């Protein structure tokens, strides 16, 4: 430990682990985990999100979950919420679709309109 820059390096790495608590995230992904969502594979969908985020090392993306959203016919349902933008709801999600949403929407900012079922709230 010689300089403040050394300390800063450790801090930035450590802040990764505190990411969940800090609330400073760019994108929040909310997976609907109601009974019908789980029955349709929402857990697999969420797992894929977590794995993709980890492999791509996306530090500013947060995955959380919510209960039944009332869209049973198009489960699993996922909301992508970005600060200052309309939230995007994707339906009928599968692990493959998740990978595409991550690559297109989360990383490159291009909404995958084929899967969108709703925009705004």
């Amino acid at each position, binding site marked *: 430990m010689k300089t*403040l820059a050394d300390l800063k390096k450790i801090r930035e790495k450590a802040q990764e682990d505190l990411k969940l608590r800090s609330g400073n995230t760019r994108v929040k992904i909310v997976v609907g985990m109601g009974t019908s969502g789980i029955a349709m594979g929402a857990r697999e969908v969420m*797992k894929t999100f977590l794995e993709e985020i980890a492999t791509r090392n996306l530090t500013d993306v947060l995955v959380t979950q919510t209960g039944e959203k009332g869209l049973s016919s198009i489960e699993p349902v996922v909301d992508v919420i970005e600060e200052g933008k309309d939230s995007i709801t994707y339906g009928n999600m599968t692990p493959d679709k998740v990978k595409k949403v991550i690559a297109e929407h989360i990383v490159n900012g291009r909404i995958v309109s084929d899967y969108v079922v709703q925009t705004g709230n």
Partner: protein
Amino acid sequence: MSLKRIDLLICCGSGCVSAGALKIKERFHEVLAENNITNEVNIIETGCMGPCDYGPVMVIYPEGIFYQKVTPEDVEDIVKEHFLKGRPVTRLMLQDKDKTIQIQKDVPFYHKQIKVALENCGYINPDSLEEYIATGGYEALGRVLLEMTPQEAINIIKESGLRGRGGGGFPTHIKWQMVHDNTQEKVKYIICNGDEGDPGAFMDRSLLEGDPHRILEGMMIAAYCMGASEGFFYIRAEYPLAITRIKQAIEQAKELGLMGQNVFGTDFCFDAEVRTGAGAFVCGEEMALISSIEGQRGNPTPKPPYPAVQGLWGKPTVVNNVETLGNIPTIISRGAEWFASMGTEKSKGTKVFALTGDIRNTGLVEVPMGITLRELIFDVGGGMIGDHKFKAVQLGGPSGGCLTADHLDTPVDYENLKARGAMMGSGGIIVMNEEKCMVNVAKFFMDFCVEESCGKCSPCRIGLKQMLEILERITSGKGKEGDIDELLRLGESVSKLSLCGLGQTAPNPVLSTIRYFRDEYESHIRDQSCNSKVCLDLMHFNIDKERCIGCSLCARKCPTNCISGSREDKYTIHQVDCIKCGNCFDVCPVKAVEKIPGMHPEIVERQKEMAKAAKRNDD
């Protein structure tokens, strides 16, 4: 590859641990494994979150959901409903009137609090140096070492107006400056006083346990400012977790090069070690503490010389309280102006209090100086339990005093409390309802001080013992006219003549209760009656025959068989044999047993007869 999506913060402050927090943690490990999501959840043991009364408590991020009074049986629900399905468990949330409070920052207990020293307590994992660094830890130390001279850093502390948080409120920068200015002496010491001994106080312990690196960083900044290269943590042996955490923090800091030789590539070298105290209250006094570290008996010595001139092993020494040091890193990083913007004219910043007694939200709180007692007790503390009325508040432990309902609008700062006969002390606050007897409270604290007096100087050793004997006489119904004046006289002499802070302040609880509750002392002495029905010799139990249903439960539970009667005649207590254990009062299903102030006429009669008999024998 981290798949963590949930941070589960379980409060492992002592309150929550004794309420079962560790069992809950174990259960979480089991249930998470059963459901195969161990890799998705971080289980973190934090320091005290504050609201001990709701314990065991936990906060779940990213949402910040706050659960209270969790039991091991609830764990399955939390995992299955909240973690797996995203449906937070409403029944474990705090209910405030008819509102359900979901997230931690909406809990009313936190509303008037500003956390400076406690900033990370209950938020980070105290075992992890990385988490402390993530919150900006050790940056203040780096900035001080690389960008400031010791004098510049002392000036920041001076401008911030920080005063010692251990009780006396002595300006921190003056101590530092004195030692800094001594350029002849090369060896200097910094000591962190963690000998917290007031009954009901747990501020220092919570800080040491919940955020050990902050205290260490504060100590190192202080050491740099005054030119010390060695520090001691004096922590009482009753705080094993605090000792472990500080020792671990020292090891971690050394490993990363934040402590030891040439910190941050500068000339500053520092080493610290922990000394455990055996738990004597007097060792919280700085001279006694220094003797104890030296390996001597923990006795105070006359001042001057002050420790800043001649302290540990005769070298210039600064003794700072845990909380004082805990404030330092934040003052450096956020600036003196920011710190001084909180508080009153002479008392700046915030103060940590351990709030206990007959209030709804007992716990650890940090509030800006100058908050009124009313806000502290009724807003932060949530007011009195049940329908009870507020009677008095004891501030500053055995050195402090009691204030009454008339003082509720007093701003809490060093000067205002002192002017009213109490003191800030280290921050223990005990709130009492109308069922508490103030004479008994004074006796309790006096008993504590007599026990803890080191015996070196006679005013404290003999004077306090005399005061205790008078108080014992008063509470057992043998008080005499003139006892109150004698207490006042003794109290004033002990205050003036004692060698150290223990004796000088020990009469305060008695003096302040006489000042504000003289009528209670008088009724104990003249009417031989304890109106709060606490002093057993000055009250009695009675069974109300109107209400008694003759169930005989009281008679069966009485250990001395002094209750007799029948279903028809109802039951009666034979006062002479009654030992006032209170069993009958507790078991009566219809609340027919009452407590009545004053001695029962039969007892008065009997005492008179016995006195006569004794006199006859003498003759």
